[in-house]
């Protein structure tokens, strides 16, 4: 893995600003989403090829552990999308470069603005499913 180790070490050692950390996150989130996507498409294809296994996997996705992973995935996807737009826009319109500091902050803010309600809704769904009426009462 050649320079993976040194790069990770250097990235931790070097005191970069937001740009550096957004890049790290973008990379990790991209890989995370890809991993999930492969799993997910495989699972969905089983709806034709092997329905019983498909159903077992759906059941698996409903367990608490996967509910937590799903939350993480939501944040990663939202972040990756928002930050991806930032990068794409900056790359395709160099004249926007002067505003990069603003763009980084905006990306973080938008991520939070979208992710926060998403997570809350998802948490409520999960609690509902696992704890049933109690949560439903609270939610009301």
């Amino acid at each position, binding site marked *: 893995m050649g*320079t*993976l180790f*040194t*790069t990770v070490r*250097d*990235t931790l*050692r*070097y*005191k*970069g*600003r937001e*740009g*550096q950390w957004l*890049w*790290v996150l973008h990379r990790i989130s991209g890989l995370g989403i890809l991993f999930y996507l492969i799993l997910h498409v495989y699972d969905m294809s089983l709806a034709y090829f092997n329905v019983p296994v498909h159903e077992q996997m759906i059941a698996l996705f409903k367990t608490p552990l996967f509910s937590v992973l799903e939350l993480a995935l939501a944040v990663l996807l939202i972040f990756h999308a928002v930050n991806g737009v930032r*990068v794409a826009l*900056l*790359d*395709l319109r*160099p004249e926007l*470069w*002067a505003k*990069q500091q603003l763009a*980084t902050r905006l990306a973080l803010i938008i991520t939070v603005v979208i992710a926060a309600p998403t997570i809350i809704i998802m948490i409520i769904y999960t609690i509902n499913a696992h704890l049933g009426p109690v949560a439903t009462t609270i939610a009301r």
Partner: protein
Amino acid sequence: MKVHLKIKRFNPEKDKKPYWGEYDIEADESDRVLDALQTVKWTIDGALNFRRSCAHGICGSDAMRINGRNALACKLLIRDAVHNGAITVEPILGLPLIKDLIVDMEPFFAHYRAVMPFLVNNNEPGERERLQSQEQRARYDDGTKCILCACCTTSCPSFWARGEYVGPAAIVQAHRFIFDSRDEGAADRLEVLVEPDGVWRCRTVFNCTEVCPRDIQVTKLIGEVKQALVTGKID
């Protein structure tokens, strides 16, 4: 004021791996970090090694990592560098370490040479200067300020990962000529930069722009080169 300096030391003839050297010195708050290093060298340990020459940010010798971030030691004042009375100084990343704060600059200059950093124009120039409008001159001004200090290239995560990446400094140099109205070598330079280790390695991290001691908008210039490759136009 009293300053506590933590300097990453390494002597290839003695040490197996780098270690921290710690020094307490007296310095003026308007002194440069370079002055502090000189004080250590001249009064505490003459064996401390670092490059320096002009001492005012114009020759590009003394790029180093001060408090974790690249800077020219001669352009950072003590008062801006001390945190809780201390300053940490380490060599720049991504280039082979030789001794103390000195790294091997050869790979850096090899990338510089790779982008044909010189005017290409085979037309007979005539007896007087080639004409250039003020706007055309302004178009590539930013890149001409570069002092090849390597602050940018050695702050770039893509460069840490792949030393083969030409790096922001070389792209800035290429930009300086690609956008010079007198130049005709853009095609050849773009041939180099379109390669996988050319501009595409740049992931828009902005570390480079943030540390350039000459305030060059490095990422923007890289972006303009990417645009030249994408649109096929240089304007």
